[in-house]
Protein backbone atom coordinates (compact mmCIF):
# COMPACT_ATOMS: atom_id res chain seq x y z
CA UNK A 1 0.00 0.00 0.00
CA UNK A 2 1.29 3.46 -0.82
CA UNK A 3 1.90 6.07 1.84
CA UNK A 4 -0.92 8.35 2.88
CA UNK A 5 0.52 11.86 3.04
CA UNK A 6 -1.71 14.86 3.82
CA UNK A 7 -1.12 18.60 3.98
CA UNK A 8 -3.31 20.41 6.54
CA UNK A 9 -4.02 24.13 6.75
CA UNK A 10 -5.43 25.98 9.76
CA UNK A 11 -6.39 29.66 9.45
CA UNK A 12 -9.40 29.97 11.74
CA UNK A 13 -8.07 32.80 13.88
CA UNK A 14 -4.77 34.57 14.53
CA UNK A 15 -2.10 32.09 13.50
CA UNK A 16 -1.48 30.48 10.13
CA UNK A 17 -0.78 26.79 10.75
CA UNK A 18 0.47 24.21 8.27
CA UNK A 19 1.20 20.55 9.02
CA UNK A 20 2.16 17.44 7.08
CA UNK A 21 1.16 13.98 8.26
CA UNK A 22 2.31 10.64 6.87
CA UNK A 23 0.33 7.51 7.75
CA UNK A 24 -0.85 9.19 10.96
CA UNK A 25 2.56 10.53 12.03
CA UNK A 26 3.18 14.28 12.12
CA UNK A 27 6.24 15.17 10.00
CA UNK A 28 5.96 18.96 10.20
CA UNK A 29 3.91 21.39 12.29
CA UNK A 30 4.53 25.04 11.38
CA UNK A 31 2.97 28.11 13.02
CA UNK A 32 3.28 31.40 11.16
CA UNK A 33 4.25 33.54 14.13
CA UNK A 34 7.39 31.45 14.42
CA UNK A 35 8.23 31.40 10.69
CA UNK A 36 7.74 35.10 10.25
CA UNK A 37 9.75 35.66 13.38
CA UNK A 38 12.68 33.64 12.00
CA UNK A 39 12.45 35.20 8.55
CA UNK A 40 12.31 38.83 9.60
CA UNK A 41 14.40 38.44 12.72
CA UNK A 42 12.36 40.82 14.81
CA UNK A 43 9.37 40.98 17.06
CA UNK A 44 6.20 40.18 15.18
CA UNK A 45 3.48 42.80 15.59
CA UNK A 46 -0.02 41.60 16.44
CA UNK A 47 -1.10 42.64 12.97
CA UNK A 48 1.19 40.12 11.25
CA UNK A 49 -0.39 37.24 13.12
CA UNK A 50 -3.65 38.02 11.37
CA UNK A 51 -2.06 38.32 8.00
CA UNK A 52 -2.74 34.84 6.64
CA UNK A 53 -2.39 35.89 3.04
CA UNK A 54 1.20 36.89 3.54
CA UNK A 55 2.07 33.94 5.77
CA UNK A 56 0.51 31.02 4.00
CA UNK A 57 3.00 30.48 1.16
CA UNK A 58 6.14 30.73 3.35
CA UNK A 59 4.52 28.49 5.97
CA UNK A 60 3.58 25.82 3.40
CA UNK A 61 7.06 25.98 1.83
CA UNK A 62 8.65 25.53 5.22
CA UNK A 63 6.40 22.60 6.10
CA UNK A 64 7.37 20.77 2.88
CA UNK A 65 11.03 21.44 3.62
CA UNK A 66 10.84 20.24 7.24
CA UNK A 67 8.93 17.10 6.27
CA UNK A 68 11.19 16.46 3.29
CA UNK A 69 8.13 15.89 1.13
CA UNK A 70 7.36 17.03 -2.42
CA UNK A 71 3.98 18.44 -3.46
CA UNK A 72 3.30 15.56 -5.88
CA UNK A 73 3.55 13.04 -3.00
CA UNK A 74 0.37 14.37 -1.36
CA UNK A 75 -2.68 12.10 -1.15
CA UNK A 76 -5.08 14.91 -0.16
CA UNK A 77 -5.21 18.50 1.12
CA UNK A 78 -7.13 19.36 4.31
CA UNK A 79 -8.25 22.70 5.73
CA UNK A 80 -10.25 24.16 8.61
CA UNK A 81 -13.72 24.92 7.27
CA UNK A 82 -14.92 26.44 10.57
CA UNK A 83 -15.73 27.70 13.08
CA UNK A 84 -13.69 30.89 12.98
CA UNK A 85 -13.36 34.30 11.39
CA UNK A 86 -14.83 34.29 7.88
CA UNK A 87 -12.03 36.36 6.34
CA UNK A 88 -9.33 34.16 7.88
CA UNK A 89 -11.07 30.91 6.97
CA UNK A 90 -11.41 32.05 3.35
CA UNK A 91 -7.64 32.34 2.92
CA UNK A 92 -7.04 28.75 4.06
CA UNK A 93 -10.03 27.37 2.14
CA UNK A 94 -9.03 29.06 -1.13
CA UNK A 95 -5.41 27.98 -0.83
CA UNK A 96 -6.30 24.37 0.02
CA UNK A 97 -8.86 24.08 -2.77
CA UNK A 98 -6.53 25.54 -5.37
CA UNK A 99 -3.69 23.23 -4.34
CA UNK A 100 -5.95 20.15 -4.34
CA UNK A 101 -7.35 21.11 -7.73
CA UNK A 102 -3.87 21.66 -9.17
CA UNK A 103 -2.58 18.35 -7.84
CA UNK A 104 -5.84 16.55 -8.68
CA UNK A 105 -6.15 15.10 -5.18
CA UNK A 106 -9.20 15.04 -2.85
CA UNK A 107 -9.97 17.81 -0.40
CA UNK A 108 -10.86 17.23 3.26
CA UNK A 109 -12.89 19.67 5.39
CA UNK A 110 -12.13 19.72 9.10
CA UNK A 111 -14.09 21.19 11.99
CA UNK A 112 -11.71 23.15 14.25
CA UNK A 113 -13.46 22.05 17.48
CA UNK A 114 -13.48 18.41 16.41
CA UNK A 115 -9.76 18.71 15.62
CA UNK A 116 -9.00 20.07 19.13
CA UNK A 117 -10.46 16.83 20.49
CA UNK A 118 -8.84 14.53 17.92
CA UNK A 119 -5.45 16.08 18.80
CA UNK A 120 -5.45 13.39 21.50
CA UNK A 121 -4.82 10.82 18.77
CA UNK A 122 -1.51 12.36 17.67
CA UNK A 123 0.54 10.68 20.42
CA UNK A 124 0.15 7.92 22.97
CA UNK A 125 -1.69 7.49 25.27
CA UNK A 126 -4.87 7.70 23.22
CA UNK A 127 -8.28 7.84 24.96
CA UNK A 128 -10.76 4.99 24.55
CA UNK A 129 -14.27 5.62 23.23
CA UNK A 130 -16.54 6.82 24.69
CA UNK A 131 -14.70 9.60 26.49
CA UNK A 132 -15.50 13.07 27.79
CA UNK A 133 -13.54 16.06 26.54
CA UNK A 134 -13.54 19.47 28.18
CA UNK A 135 -12.60 21.91 25.39
CA UNK A 136 -11.49 25.23 26.85
CA UNK A 137 -10.09 28.22 24.97
CA UNK A 138 -10.42 31.95 24.45
CA UNK A 139 -13.51 31.42 22.33
CA UNK A 140 -15.01 28.16 23.59
CA UNK A 141 -15.95 26.25 26.72
CA UNK A 142 -17.74 22.96 26.19
CA UNK A 143 -18.03 19.41 27.47
CA UNK A 144 -18.20 16.96 24.61
CA UNK A 145 -19.25 13.32 24.79
CA UNK A 146 -17.00 11.65 22.20
CA UNK A 147 -18.57 8.38 21.10
CA UNK A 148 -16.37 7.80 18.08
CA UNK A 149 -14.01 9.73 15.80
CA UNK A 150 -16.82 11.62 14.12
CA UNK A 151 -19.66 11.04 16.53
CA UNK A 152 -19.60 13.78 19.12
CA UNK A 153 -22.26 15.37 21.26
CA UNK A 154 -21.93 18.71 23.06
CA UNK A 155 -23.47 17.97 26.47
CA UNK A 156 -22.60 21.31 28.10
CA UNK A 157 -21.44 24.72 26.88
CA UNK A 158 -20.99 28.28 28.03
CA UNK A 159 -24.04 30.48 27.69
CA UNK A 160 -22.01 33.71 27.57
CA UNK A 161 -18.23 34.23 27.94
CA UNK A 162 -15.62 31.53 27.32
CA UNK A 163 -13.36 30.61 30.25
CA UNK A 164 -10.27 31.87 28.39
CA UNK A 165 -11.97 35.22 28.09
CA UNK A 166 -12.72 35.22 31.82
CA UNK A 167 -9.00 34.62 32.46
CA UNK A 168 -7.98 37.40 30.07
CA UNK A 169 -10.50 39.87 31.48
CA UNK A 170 -9.57 39.07 35.08
CA UNK A 171 -5.96 39.74 34.06
CA UNK A 172 -7.01 43.02 32.45
CA UNK A 173 -8.64 44.15 35.72
CA UNK A 174 -5.34 43.42 37.43
CA UNK A 175 -3.56 45.44 34.74
CA UNK A 176 -1.77 42.41 33.33
CA UNK A 177 -1.40 42.93 29.54
CA UNK A 178 -3.49 40.96 26.96
CA UNK A 179 -3.56 38.01 26.58
CA UNK A 180 -3.21 37.99 30.33
CA UNK A 181 -4.35 34.42 31.00
CA UNK A 182 -0.94 32.74 30.66
CA UNK A 183 0.78 35.51 32.65
CA UNK A 184 -1.84 35.32 35.40
CA UNK A 185 -1.08 31.59 35.61
CA UNK A 186 2.63 32.37 36.17
CA UNK A 187 2.02 35.03 38.85
CA UNK A 188 -0.44 32.70 40.62
CA UNK A 189 2.34 30.14 41.24
CA UNK A 190 3.61 32.26 44.13
CA UNK A 191 0.16 32.92 45.60
CA UNK A 192 -2.25 31.41 48.10
CA UNK A 193 -5.31 30.14 46.24
CA UNK A 194 -7.46 29.92 49.38
CA UNK A 195 -7.03 33.57 50.41
CA UNK A 196 -10.10 35.03 48.65
CA UNK A 197 -13.36 33.50 47.54
CA UNK A 198 -15.93 34.70 45.03
CA UNK A 199 -19.64 34.02 44.71
CA UNK A 200 -20.37 31.61 41.85
CA UNK A 201 -23.40 31.48 39.63
CA UNK A 202 -24.61 27.94 39.06
CA UNK A 203 -26.01 27.14 35.64
CA UNK A 204 -28.54 24.48 34.76
CA UNK A 205 -27.28 21.01 33.93
CA UNK A 206 -23.83 20.87 32.41
CA UNK A 207 -23.80 24.43 31.06
CA UNK A 208 -21.41 27.17 32.06
CA UNK A 209 -21.59 30.91 32.64
CA UNK A 210 -18.53 33.10 33.16
CA UNK A 211 -20.07 36.53 32.82
CA UNK A 212 -21.28 36.64 36.44
CA UNK A 213 -17.95 35.65 37.96
CA UNK A 214 -16.24 38.36 35.88
CA UNK A 215 -18.57 40.92 37.47
CA UNK A 216 -17.90 39.44 40.93
CA UNK A 217 -14.15 39.94 40.43
CA UNK A 218 -14.79 43.51 39.34
CA UNK A 219 -16.88 44.39 42.40
CA UNK A 220 -14.46 42.60 44.72
CA UNK A 221 -11.48 44.61 43.40
CA UNK A 222 -13.45 47.86 43.48
CA UNK A 223 -14.48 47.31 47.12
CA UNK A 224 -10.98 46.30 48.20
CA UNK A 225 -9.40 49.30 46.46
CA UNK A 226 -11.73 51.59 48.42
CA UNK A 227 -10.22 50.25 51.63
CA UNK A 228 -6.65 50.07 50.34
CA UNK A 229 -5.69 51.79 47.05
CA UNK A 230 -2.61 49.54 46.74
CA UNK A 231 -4.62 46.36 47.28
CA UNK A 232 -3.77 44.88 43.86
CA UNK A 233 -0.01 45.54 43.91
CA UNK A 234 0.33 44.34 47.51
CA UNK A 235 -1.59 41.08 46.99
CA UNK A 236 -1.20 40.26 43.30
CA UNK A 237 -0.04 36.61 43.57
CA UNK A 238 -2.80 35.74 46.08
CA UNK A 239 -5.48 37.45 43.97
CA UNK A 240 -4.30 35.65 40.81
CA UNK A 241 -4.13 32.28 42.58
CA UNK A 242 -7.59 32.70 44.13
CA UNK A 243 -9.21 33.78 40.84
CA UNK A 244 -7.55 30.95 38.96
CA UNK A 245 -8.66 28.38 41.54
CA UNK A 246 -12.21 29.72 41.33
CA UNK A 247 -12.36 29.47 37.51
CA UNK A 248 -10.83 25.99 37.47
CA UNK A 249 -13.26 24.77 40.14
CA UNK A 250 -16.21 25.99 38.03
CA UNK A 251 -14.81 23.98 35.10
CA UNK A 252 -14.22 20.82 37.12
CA UNK A 253 -17.55 20.88 38.93
CA UNK A 254 -19.46 20.29 35.68
CA UNK A 255 -16.88 17.83 34.41
CA UNK A 256 -17.34 15.75 37.58
CA UNK A 257 -21.09 15.91 37.13
CA UNK A 258 -20.80 14.83 33.48
CA UNK A 259 -18.50 11.92 34.36
CA UNK A 260 -20.98 10.74 36.97
CA UNK A 261 -24.02 11.22 34.75
CA UNK A 262 -22.59 9.27 31.83
CA UNK A 263 -20.63 6.79 33.95
CA UNK A 264 -17.43 7.57 32.06
CA UNK A 265 -13.90 7.40 33.46
CA UNK A 266 -11.99 8.39 30.32
CA UNK A 267 -11.57 12.16 30.62
CA UNK A 268 -9.65 14.51 28.34
CA UNK A 269 -9.01 18.25 28.10
CA UNK A 270 -8.29 20.25 24.95
CA UNK A 271 -7.90 23.84 23.74
CA UNK A 272 -5.64 26.75 24.71
CA UNK A 273 -6.70 26.92 28.38
CA UNK A 274 -5.68 23.26 28.85
CA UNK A 275 -2.15 24.69 29.05
CA UNK A 276 -3.13 26.26 32.40
CA UNK A 277 -0.96 24.74 35.13
CA UNK A 278 -3.61 24.84 37.88
CA UNK A 279 -6.16 23.09 35.66
CA UNK A 280 -3.60 20.38 34.84
CA UNK A 281 -2.74 19.91 38.52
CA UNK A 282 -6.33 19.80 39.76
CA UNK A 283 -7.33 17.42 36.98
CA UNK A 284 -4.60 15.04 38.09
CA UNK A 285 -5.95 15.19 41.65
CA UNK A 286 -9.47 14.46 40.41
CA UNK A 287 -8.13 11.52 38.41
CA UNK A 288 -6.73 9.92 41.54
CA UNK A 289 -9.86 10.65 43.55
CA UNK A 290 -12.39 9.36 40.99
CA UNK A 291 -10.12 6.81 39.27
CA UNK A 292 -10.32 8.58 35.93
CA UNK A 293 -7.88 7.95 33.12
CA UNK A 294 -6.99 11.48 32.08
CA UNK A 295 -5.56 12.75 28.82
CA UNK A 296 -3.77 16.09 28.66
CA UNK A 297 -2.31 17.12 25.28
CA UNK A 298 1.27 18.30 24.80
CA UNK A 299 1.57 22.10 25.01
CA UNK A 300 2.08 22.55 21.26
CA UNK A 301 -1.18 20.75 20.54
CA UNK A 302 -3.23 22.76 23.07
CA UNK A 303 -3.33 26.10 21.30
CA UNK A 304 -4.44 26.48 17.68
CA UNK A 305 -2.22 24.39 15.41
CA UNK A 306 -2.40 22.49 12.12
CA UNK A 307 -1.18 19.14 13.49
CA UNK A 308 -4.63 18.61 14.99
CA UNK A 309 -6.22 19.42 11.62
CA UNK A 310 -3.85 16.89 10.04
CA UNK A 311 -4.74 14.08 12.47
CA UNK A 312 -8.48 14.78 12.04
CA UNK A 313 -7.96 14.72 8.26
CA UNK A 314 -6.06 11.44 8.53
CA UNK A 315 -9.05 9.77 10.19
CA UNK A 316 -11.48 11.42 7.76
CA UNK A 317 -9.42 9.95 4.90
CA UNK A 318 -9.50 6.51 6.55
CA UNK A 319 -13.30 6.77 6.95
CA UNK A 320 -13.69 8.00 3.36
CA UNK A 321 -15.07 11.38 4.41
CA UNK A 322 -13.97 13.72 1.63
CA UNK A 323 -15.05 17.31 1.00
CA UNK A 324 -16.13 19.31 -2.02
CA UNK A 325 -14.53 22.05 -4.12
CA UNK A 326 -17.89 23.85 -3.86
CA UNK A 327 -17.96 24.08 -0.04
CA UNK A 328 -17.81 27.53 1.61
CA UNK A 329 -16.27 28.24 5.01
CA UNK A 330 -18.67 27.99 7.97
CA UNK A 331 -17.88 30.66 10.62
CA UNK A 332 -20.34 29.09 13.10
CA UNK A 333 -20.03 25.38 12.44
CA UNK A 334 -21.26 23.49 15.50
CA UNK A 335 -20.05 20.00 16.35
CA UNK A 336 -23.32 18.23 15.60
Amino acid at each position, binding site marked *: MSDRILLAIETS*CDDTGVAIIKNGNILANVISTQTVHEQYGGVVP*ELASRDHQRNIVPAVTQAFKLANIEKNQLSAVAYTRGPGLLGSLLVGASFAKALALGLQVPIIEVNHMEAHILAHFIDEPRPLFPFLCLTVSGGHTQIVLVKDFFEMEVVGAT*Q*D*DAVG*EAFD*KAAKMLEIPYPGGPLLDKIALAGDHTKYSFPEVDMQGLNYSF*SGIKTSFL*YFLRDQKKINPDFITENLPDICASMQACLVEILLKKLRRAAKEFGIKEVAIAGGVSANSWLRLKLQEEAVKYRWNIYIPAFEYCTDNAAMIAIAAHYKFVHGKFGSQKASPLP*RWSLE
Partner: protein
Amino acid sequence: MELICTHISELRLVAQSIIEFNRKYSIWLFEGEMGAGKTTLIKEICNQLTVMDNVSSPTYSIVNEYVTKNNKIIYHFDFFRLKQEEEALDIGVEEYFYSQNYCFIEWSSKIPSLIPPKYAKIEINLYKTNQRVIQLSQHG
Protein backbone atom coordinates in the same frame (compact mmCIF):
# COMPACT_ATOMS: atom_id res chain seq x y z
CA MET B 1 -34.11 58.60 25.88
CA GLU B 2 -33.23 57.12 29.24
CA LEU B 3 -34.19 53.72 30.64
CA ILE B 4 -33.65 52.46 34.16
CA CYS B 5 -33.09 48.81 34.93
CA THR B 6 -32.99 47.78 38.58
CA HIS B 7 -33.52 44.04 38.20
CA ILE B 8 -32.79 41.36 35.61
CA SER B 9 -36.56 40.79 35.24
CA GLU B 10 -36.85 44.26 33.65
CA LEU B 11 -34.33 43.35 30.94
CA ARG B 12 -37.04 42.13 28.57
CA LEU B 13 -38.85 45.44 28.64
CA VAL B 14 -35.61 47.40 28.26
CA ALA B 15 -34.61 45.32 25.22
CA GLN B 16 -38.05 45.85 23.65
CA SER B 17 -37.82 49.61 24.11
CA ILE B 18 -34.35 49.72 22.58
CA ILE B 19 -35.43 47.71 19.51
CA GLU B 20 -38.46 49.96 19.03
CA PHE B 21 -36.46 53.18 19.47
CA ASN B 22 -33.60 52.19 17.12
CA ARG B 23 -35.75 50.56 14.45
CA LYS B 24 -34.32 52.76 11.67
CA TYR B 25 -30.68 52.12 12.53
CA SER B 26 -28.56 49.10 11.67
CA ILE B 27 -25.36 50.08 13.51
CA TRP B 28 -25.75 49.95 17.29
CA LEU B 29 -22.86 50.81 19.59
CA PHE B 30 -22.97 49.41 23.12
CA GLU B 31 -20.90 51.45 25.56
CA GLY B 32 -20.20 50.73 29.19
CA GLU B 33 -17.34 49.54 31.36
CA MET B 34 -16.45 45.89 31.80
CA GLY B 35 -19.20 44.15 33.76
CA ALA B 36 -21.82 46.78 32.88
CA GLY B 37 -23.87 44.13 31.10
CA LYS B 38 -23.29 44.83 27.39
CA THR B 39 -23.26 41.17 26.35
CA THR B 40 -26.23 40.34 28.58
CA LEU B 41 -28.27 43.14 27.00
CA ILE B 42 -27.30 42.07 23.47
CA LYS B 43 -28.28 38.50 24.35
CA GLU B 44 -31.77 39.67 25.33
CA ILE B 45 -32.12 41.91 22.26
CA CYS B 46 -31.13 38.97 20.02
CA ASN B 47 -33.61 36.79 21.86
CA GLN B 48 -36.40 39.30 21.09
CA LEU B 49 -35.28 39.42 17.46
CA THR B 50 -35.83 35.61 17.35
CA VAL B 51 -32.18 34.56 17.10
CA MET B 52 -31.97 30.78 17.42
CA ASP B 53 -28.18 30.51 17.98
CA ASN B 54 -26.47 30.69 21.34
CA VAL B 55 -25.45 34.34 21.76
CA SER B 56 -22.04 34.46 23.41
CA SER B 57 -19.28 36.98 23.78
CA PRO B 58 -17.12 37.42 20.64
CA THR B 59 -14.07 38.81 22.47
CA TYR B 60 -11.84 36.11 21.01
CA SER B 61 -13.54 35.60 17.66
CA ILE B 62 -14.10 39.41 17.19
CA VAL B 63 -17.36 38.77 15.33
CA ASN B 64 -20.22 36.31 15.83
CA GLU B 65 -22.90 35.78 13.23
CA TYR B 66 -26.46 34.91 14.23
CA VAL B 67 -29.52 33.99 12.17
CA THR B 68 -33.09 34.86 13.16
CA LYS B 69 -36.23 32.80 12.54
CA ASN B 70 -36.93 34.77 9.34
CA ASN B 71 -33.37 34.22 8.10
CA LYS B 72 -32.12 37.71 8.89
CA ILE B 73 -28.44 37.96 9.76
CA ILE B 74 -27.16 39.77 12.85
CA TYR B 75 -23.48 40.52 13.46
CA HIS B 76 -22.15 40.86 17.01
CA PHE B 77 -18.72 42.47 17.36
CA ASP B 78 -16.32 42.91 20.24
CA PHE B 79 -13.17 44.92 19.51
CA PHE B 80 -11.81 44.66 23.05
CA ARG B 81 -8.61 42.84 22.12
CA LEU B 82 -7.64 44.88 19.04
CA LYS B 83 -4.42 46.82 19.28
CA GLN B 84 -4.72 48.80 16.03
CA GLU B 85 -7.68 49.93 13.93
CA GLU B 86 -6.09 48.33 10.86
CA GLU B 87 -6.71 44.88 12.33
CA ALA B 88 -10.45 45.53 12.04
CA LEU B 89 -9.99 46.38 8.35
CA ASP B 90 -8.14 43.09 7.93
CA ILE B 91 -11.17 41.10 9.03
CA GLY B 92 -13.33 43.12 6.62
CA VAL B 93 -15.41 45.20 9.04
CA GLU B 94 -16.48 47.56 6.27
CA GLU B 95 -18.27 44.75 4.46
CA TYR B 96 -20.10 43.86 7.65
CA PHE B 97 -20.93 47.47 8.60
CA TYR B 98 -22.33 48.39 5.17
CA SER B 99 -24.23 45.11 4.68
CA GLN B 100 -27.53 46.65 5.98
CA ASN B 101 -27.70 43.83 8.53
CA TYR B 102 -27.87 44.64 12.22
CA CYS B 103 -24.37 45.19 13.66
CA PHE B 104 -24.21 45.16 17.47
CA ILE B 105 -20.83 46.52 18.49
CA GLU B 106 -19.02 46.31 21.84
CA TRP B 107 -15.82 48.31 22.49
CA SER B 108 -16.27 50.58 19.45
CA SER B 109 -13.80 52.99 21.09
CA LYS B 110 -11.04 50.76 19.68
CA ILE B 111 -12.00 51.66 16.09
CA PRO B 112 -13.26 55.29 16.22
CA SER B 113 -12.58 56.18 12.59
CA LEU B 114 -14.21 53.06 11.13
CA ILE B 115 -17.68 53.53 12.62
CA PRO B 116 -20.20 54.57 9.92
CA PRO B 117 -21.56 58.14 10.32
CA LYS B 118 -25.10 56.92 10.99
CA TYR B 119 -25.38 54.94 14.20
CA ALA B 120 -27.37 54.49 17.39
CA LYS B 121 -25.65 54.46 20.75
CA ILE B 122 -26.68 52.56 23.86
CA GLU B 123 -24.76 53.62 26.96
CA ILE B 124 -25.02 51.53 30.09
CA ASN B 125 -24.03 53.20 33.36
CA LEU B 126 -23.87 51.36 36.61
CA TYR B 127 -24.90 53.37 39.67
CA LYS B 128 -25.62 51.29 42.71
CA THR B 129 -24.71 47.61 42.65
CA ASN B 130 -27.74 46.64 40.63
CA GLN B 131 -29.08 49.86 39.18
CA ARG B 132 -28.29 50.51 35.54
CA VAL B 133 -29.19 53.63 33.63
CA ILE B 134 -29.33 53.09 29.88
CA GLN B 135 -29.10 56.13 27.65
CA LEU B 136 -30.13 55.96 24.01
CA SER B 137 -29.02 58.44 21.38
CA GLN B 138 -29.01 58.56 17.59
CA HIS B 139 -26.36 60.08 15.38
CA GLY B 140 -26.09 61.00 11.67
